């Protein structure tokens, strides 16, 4: 038992596959993307990677997926993130257009997100309602409120005459938010890293540390793994369950800021549609168990990047239209999870054959 095993690269690779299969998924998709680009006669370059990094599927969905990951690790679900982001982005635009102050705008976005998350968290943890129902309800409410408000508020304040909330381009902070932060990037030689991607990755690293290196992070896993036992070990189960929704709200606020800075506007009727589902998909592709208790927040980065890459692959193939996009996203999701769940049992069958023969 005690004897040291020699390093075997195949074993290391198989352990990497078992624990971090999301990395392989992303690499495979990236290779497919490179091949499709080359096949259409262009050259695959760092610009393509920058585009994936700053895609809304990476930075906006990805930010919310970090919160979704914590919610799912506690064994719950949040369906309201997409609508919540739209409503929060609406409030963010209004505050900017009325005050022109960048700090106030950022504060308003985060505070609104936290407020929406707190509504979910309190109803789920303290009123003990099922998270699916609560967030289904708030999903409908948040979007509807944004739709109602955008038609009610005069265009001079919403920033757009066409049922949109947009940042007022005449305000002094506009240039900084949109041109410098929202669409700008750091140049490393030929490689341009967008600021929004840096923000996303910094937040992701922060949450990877929170999940793995803090007492709070461990209590999140404990609640998802066995809530009753966690409670009897002294964990405030209700507080943890509420807190992950509040954290998700905060990240919805971040996503709303990115939406406003990167896109410049939000359309309550169409923006952020199905983002709650994309965020769940990113979490699942990131190897986090829907049953709770297991998974790595780092996986969310690769889950979100994989999803963004699928979209780019489809766009790069001229024969495919945008309408077919969800089909491929759905297929990738099912295929990856199929390999993950069916893989071990197939391997077991092969092993048993070897033993018996």
């Amino acid at each position, binding site marked *: 038992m005690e004897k040291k095993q020699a390093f075997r690269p195949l074993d290391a690779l198989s352990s990497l596959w078992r624990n971090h299969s999301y990395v392989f998924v992303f690499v495979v998709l990236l290779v497919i993307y490179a091949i499709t680009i080359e096949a259409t006669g262009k050259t695959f370059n760092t610009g393509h990677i920058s585009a994936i990094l700053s895609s809304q599927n990476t930075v906006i969905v990805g930010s919310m997926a970090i919160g979704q990951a914590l919610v799912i690790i506690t064994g719950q679900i949040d369906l309201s993130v997409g609508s919540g982001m739209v409503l929060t982005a609406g409030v963010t635009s209004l505050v900017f257009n009325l005050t022109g102050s960048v700090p106030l705008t950022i504060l308003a976005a985060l505070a609104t997100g936290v407020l929406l998350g707190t509504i979910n968290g309190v109803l789920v943890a303290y009123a003990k309602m099922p998270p699916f129902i609560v967030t289904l309800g708030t999903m409908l409410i948040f979007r509807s409120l944004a739709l109602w408000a955008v038609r009610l508020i005069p265009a001079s304040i919403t920033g757009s005459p066409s049922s949109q909330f947009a940042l007022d381009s005449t305000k002094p902070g506009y240039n900084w938010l949109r041109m410098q932060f929202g669409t700008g990037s750091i140049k490393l030689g030929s490689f341009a890293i967008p600021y929004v991607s840096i923000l996303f990755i910094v937040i992701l690293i922060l949450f990877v540390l929170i999940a793995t290196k803090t007492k709070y992070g461990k209590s999140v896993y404990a609640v998802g793994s066995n809530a009753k036992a966690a*409670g009897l070990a002294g964990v405030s189960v209700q507080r943890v369950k509420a807190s992950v929704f509040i954290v998700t709200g905060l990240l919805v606020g971040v996503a709303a800021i990115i939406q406003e800075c990167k896109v410049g506007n939000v359309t309550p009727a169409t923006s952020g549609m199905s983002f709650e589902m994309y965020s769940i998909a990113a979490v699942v592709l990131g190897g986090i168990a829907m049953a709770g208790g297991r998974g790595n927040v780092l996986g969310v980065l690769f889950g979100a990047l994989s999803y963004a890459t699928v979209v780019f692959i489809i766009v790069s193939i001229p024969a495919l239209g945008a309408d077919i996009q969800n089909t491929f996203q759905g297929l990738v999701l099912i295929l990856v999870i199929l390999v993950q769940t069916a893989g071990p049992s197939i391997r077991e069958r092969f092993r048993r054959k070897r033993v018996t023969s």
Partner: protein
Amino acid sequence: MTGMSKSFDGNLVLDDVNLTVEPGQIHALLGENGAGKSTLLNILAGVLPADAGTIVFDGITYHDASINQMEAAGLSFVHQELNVINDLTVSENIFFNHELTYPLGVLKRSQMLAETQALFERFAVDINPTAKVSDLKTGQKQMLEICRALHLDAKLMILDEPTTALGNDEIDHLFALIRQLKANGKSVIFVSHKMPEIFQIADTYTVLRNGQLVSEGSIADTTPLAVTRAMVGEHRGTTAGYRQRPLGDVVLEVSSLTSDAFTGVNLKVHRGEILALTGLAGCGASELLQSMFGAFPTLSGTIEIGGKPVSGGIGAFARHGVGMLPTNRKENSVIPDVSVLENVYLAEHCLAFWPPYIVKRRELERYEPLGEMLGIRAASPDMGINSLSGGNQQKVFLARWLNTDADIMLFDNPTQGVDVGAKEDIYELILDLADKGKTIVINTLEIPEIQKVSDRCVVLYSGAVVADLPHDAINEHDVMAYATNAIDARS
């Protein structure tokens, strides 16, 4: 079964084991936890495939048979954990997966009810067939589980520790029922850790140790001591047993405490004392223990710790230095997806939230002396908790509270599902902790356990304290008499 072998991930858990049960025989399968009993039975029942060996059941040889095949062949398995479905009625549980139906799958409800009634009458079981299972007591659920197996009219019935959840009357009833089966030519494989039960009911026995067959034969030709020695092996002697120690001031005082499960309880526990609470299942002792940890709601009365009244939830009691090892380890203690170390430090982190980050080196420095003192056998603290045996897991959860420097330790049925050797370890640990000045309250149904460790024994009957016996007055007969209220009935 002959030459059965099985290994998991290269660990041989069954090594060339034979097991023979004749018709009309009650066979006791014995061994410590991890000896391979469950693996052997799971292979027999078709839950697991064997690596080698043959199973001959009723003259037919089976190879890699499925659960359904073995069930059809006349084998039924009552597992250690309850597998009843709480949201269905008693009768629906009896017929679960074997429903009687009209064409198109419409259920024959009245016929199923009548058959359930008849089954219960035949075996003198007092359960209402239309009751919802969630409303039954644990003992009744266990009887229902056994009745479900009886209903299959199996030739061989496997009972895996059926008596842990049963009171004495229910155990007697179960034994009468097993004898009835035997008289009808059916066979039973009976797994238990309780020697008196085995010598009362079984005809033959097999002892496994570390996956190997170490002893088998007729119960009439052996003694409990010899069987225990075979189970444990030669390396372990008897423990020092009970020892007295000086007691300090009153540290835990319960006054007129009332809840849904008990009424007007008064208790005083001194520093360094080991107090045992006991009584039949459902007497309120477990709930009383839980209320001293804030885990069971009380209606009136006070709990004082070190002279200060404490109320509120688990957090409030934990901050006053109370820790609890709950009953039903799998449900109430195990955090299955995280490591041994993470299972240990969870409670301490809830109390000391600052600093909010974890320094693993510091956690290991706290864990190592605890692991050594408690004798936790884990190859590494980073191992998954589920790779440890029951007794070792129990030590991990004890470490969880000792890590918080709890002064008062509550143990709810601490040796449930723990093998003989680990039981001895746990008794010894309880005595050691008391020697170090910890105050200990244990709830247990096992009277020999109380005799071995406790300074005082409080007996509950139907939610009220009926006796408070000092160590010298604790004996099996008296405690049982109080617990069953036989003394009250006599006067």
